[in-house]
């Protein structure tokens, strides 16, 4: 839930409306958990779970084969998966044949977190990556929201992880562009 919450706070800092809430499955440690976040310029009235996401952030890649994660995702939707492997190595390219390939990306967020924060907690990095990926939110806002949520050194380190992931994704996008124009 924290990632969705930070995203919502970041959007708020940019003057936008945001709504973040946990899915309504049991939130116990170890069980698959989904959180939702809506961002809009107008007030958000609806309360339903996000049925047709514009973007999907997957923190735990092992879930992909357990739960129907991609239900409702539109063909030009963004998918950002936390793993050091490449998207094409994950074993479900078939599903994504008709998707905008530019919008499918992996990011080694756990590794980035370990490097900058010292703990395998990928949330901050994934949000930094998300910012670069979709352009829906600025890195600045994400970092500010991270610092609001985690004070002191912990906040700084997470903000650094976000930045590192931001740069990683920016690079990945450029590479893709470079590859596709060749």
């Amino acid at each position, binding site marked *: 839930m924290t990632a969705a919450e930070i995203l919502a*706070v970041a959007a708020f800092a940019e003057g936008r*409306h945001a709504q973040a809430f946990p899915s*309504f499955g049991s939130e116990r440690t170890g069980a698959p958990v989904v959180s939702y976040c809506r961002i809009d310029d107008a007030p958000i009235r609806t*309360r339903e779970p996000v*049925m047709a996401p514009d973007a999907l952030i997957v923190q735990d890649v092992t879930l992909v084969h357990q739960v129907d994660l991609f239900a409702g995702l539109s063909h030009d939707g963004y998918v950002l998966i936390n793993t050091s492997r490449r998207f094409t190595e994950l074993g479900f390219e078939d599903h994504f044949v008709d998707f905008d390939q530019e919008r499918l990306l992996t990011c080694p967020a756990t590794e980035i977190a370990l490097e900058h924060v010292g703990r395998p907690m990928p949330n901050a990095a994934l949000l930094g990556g998300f910012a670069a990926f979709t352009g829906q939110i600025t890195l600045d806002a994400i970092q500010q929201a991270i610092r609001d949520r985690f004070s002191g050194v912990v906040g700084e380190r997470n903000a650094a992880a976000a930045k590192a992931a931001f740069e990683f994704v920016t690079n990945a996008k450029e590479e893709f562009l470079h590859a596709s124009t060749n």
Partner: protein
Amino acid sequence: MLRQIEGSRAIAETVALCRPEVVCAYPISPQTHIIEAIGAMVKAGTLAPCEFINVESEFAAMSVAIGASAAGARAYTATASQGLLYMIEAVYNAAGLGLPIVMTLANRAIGAPINIWNDHSDAMAVRDAGWIQLFAETNQEAADLHVQAFRLAEELSVPVMVCMDGFILTHAVERVDILDQATVDLLLPPYEPRQVLDPADPVSIGAMVGPEAFEEVRYLAHLRQLDALERIPVIAKQFAEVTGRASGGLVSSYRTEDAQTIIVALGSVLGTIKDAVDMRRDLGERVGVVGITSFRPFPGDAVREALRPATQIVVLEKAFSVGFGGVLSTDVAMSLQGEQHVLRNVVAGLGGRAITRRSLEELIATAVRGELPVLTFLDLDHEAVDRERTRMAGTRRSGPSAENLLRDRGTVGVSTSRSDS
């Protein structure tokens, strides 16, 4: 100040601004974050003077509130579902004694089967207890209603519960404007009890009342709730004047002026309904929404007035009376006596099942075509139900229905010794 915070946090901070003097509560999902936050404020000294008491049960929670309120203190507690049932004797007692306790009810389904998610069965279980029941549509309204609740309760000597959808509102992080102390103090003067335990002026509170006077005592409580029908709009109006935003009141209307079909509901689902209604309006259907904020006292006149434009009324509710049908729809039907409407009841969202905009749009379309049955259970899996009925008809020892249904869905593992497999 505008903040992006969790609903529970918004409630805790707003309740703290109301200067409660005794806060006593027992933890139960999904109310825990409210009480934890208030407890932290009291322990840190930022909410003072205030006694925060960790009670041993919900029954104790309401009982402590009763004692505190009778002794002249502003008392607050919070609960949900099973907790509300556990304190139900004390809930009736508080209303019967006329004590202005305010309680947050984080609406949650009542078991069995045990279920921690949202519906309105808990609020409905105590609708006759004599408490005022206000339903919030958003976290902003939930926070605002607490200020209005204390004011209303203390003016009338009637306890008030603010109902907000568990998880959907309590655990949602959204934009809320938290008032400042000066504004709350303006809206909520200090508590002046109508009756109080005071050695300087002793009274006996809680004596037995026999057949010769019981009906009159009950009727007086009824009149106080009717007074509330007058006071609620006045308090809401003052709130709007001071804060600049509408919160509370008896009912609210959305696109009803020329509506042929109006959907009536309580609580947060109104937001999703409004989105669905906008989609249908774009297709030319004349649909509107009426939200009921004050469920008890039931604002019959206001409801009748608000529903007048439409020929078809669809009451969508998160509760039902087992073996009969809707609860809210029955109240609405009562208020519409003598009016010419087609009335339809939809039960939805039980046990936290998501009410989706798509399902609502299909529902509206069906209603507009005049094909909605008198009673619908939204998104009910009829096949699963039929399979269980077949199982039950096939063998006496068919086992717990709940487990059978879960096994059907693959949520529970299949055992190797099923006698009927």
